[in-house]
């Protein structure tokens, strides 16, 4: 129970941070994406899947897109990261390597968001995500995400500490 509450508070906190964080042009770091990626990289249990899904869903609620687009995109990206870093590549901590993972993961998320959005627009009425942003926005987004990857990594460690602390308390009752 403590785990769910702490995860929820962190997701809402990062969502709020994304909302208040000043945008440079149209670019901003995607804190929830980084949180989901860091967990997919670090964790072996299925927690990271739930976290990726609900982080994406939180974004879905506050964006102008179809519900589920970010949730599915984050989920697929997290699963691919977790699977590949344990099957084909290493999951050792190395700043350059993590940077590469964050970069590829963000491009994958953007691709999935655009693909799912255009699919949804084709089947239903709604606004397509503006392609005009793609050329300039994404590269600067990538840069900002790389800068904030390390702070979010440390935030995930803090999150784990809190979960361990409160789970111990729960066990003693």
């Amino acid at each position, binding site marked *: 129970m403590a785990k769910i509450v702490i995860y929820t508070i962190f997701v809402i906190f990062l969502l709020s941070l994304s909302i208040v964080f000043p945008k440079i042009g149209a670019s*901003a770091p995607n804190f929830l994406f980084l949180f989901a990626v860091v967990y997919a990289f670090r964790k072996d249990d299925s927690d990271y899947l739930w976290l990726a899904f609900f982080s994406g869903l939180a974004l879905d*609620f506050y964006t102008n897109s179809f*519900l589920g687009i970010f949730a599915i995109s984050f989920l697929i990206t997290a699963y691919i990261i*977790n699977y590949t870093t344990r099957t084909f590549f290493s999951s050792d901590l190395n700043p350059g390597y993590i940077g590469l993972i964050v970069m590829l993961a963000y491009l994958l998320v953007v691709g999935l968001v655009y693909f799912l959005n255009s699919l*949804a627009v084709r089947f239903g009425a709604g606004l*397509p995500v503006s392609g005009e942003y793609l050329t300039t926005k994404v590269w600067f987004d990538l840069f900002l995400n790389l800068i904030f990857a390390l702070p979010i990594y440390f935030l995930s460690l803090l999150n784990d500490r809190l979960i361990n602390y409160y789970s111990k308390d729960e066990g003693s009752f």
Partner: protein
Amino acid sequence: MRSKRQLGVFSLLIFLGLVLLILSINGLSKPLQSTGVQPSRPLVYVFSKAGNSLKSFFSYFSSVNSVNRKNAALSEQLRKLQQENVALQQYKLENEKLREELAFRQKTSLNLVSATVLGKDPTGFSQSLVLNIGKSSGIKVGAAVLSEGFLIGKIVSVDTFTSKVLLVTDPQSTIDAQISSTGDNGIVRGSYGSGMIIENLSQSALVNNNDRVMTAGLSAEIPRGLLIGNVGQLQSQKSDLLQRATVISGVDLKNLEFVSVIKE
């Protein structure tokens, strides 16, 4: 065993995501979206406020590093006063914005509903806002949203207690407009980087810097005569078939807190 469990959770969540997407495509996800936003709203509000305070705290903290230890007590006092000052400035700004909004509402004959901006699109993929009013306040899709008398966008989706606004600066936004001094018609479109452009103006149209750009009222939801902004720079060449120019809004669209929505 572990990977089988992960695959199971993954499949379950993908299924759930697809169900949400299908519901959303068919317009059936509104109650769910509304329910999803409601519980997080107070926490998002609190964290957003705390985030703003944190921002001002860190900017102050960096300056404290340069102060020597003897002045620590004074610095502490200064920090408190500055925080108090920031809070007061925020109240003042809030007050001014409310007064400006109220002044416009008293002048106009439009049927307006006041709203507070709950959030902005955090991803930056679209220029949109979430407002704290929805169907329960009589808000409908397509309704024009104003701030200090300027058109800032239109409602694109409505839940029971919240609604989403697509800002005039989003590239998806198009509004029929006219230059007030000459009556020449054009289309105001959002452009990358939070700007606006009026285009499709005929080559014979006289477009001058600072000319007022108003809504043309060609669509049913957006009445004629709402101020969109002023003409900035002319972007077209003499050889172009149609003219285009930048439009500068009279309000800061990045710092909106209170808006008004036109009710039918």
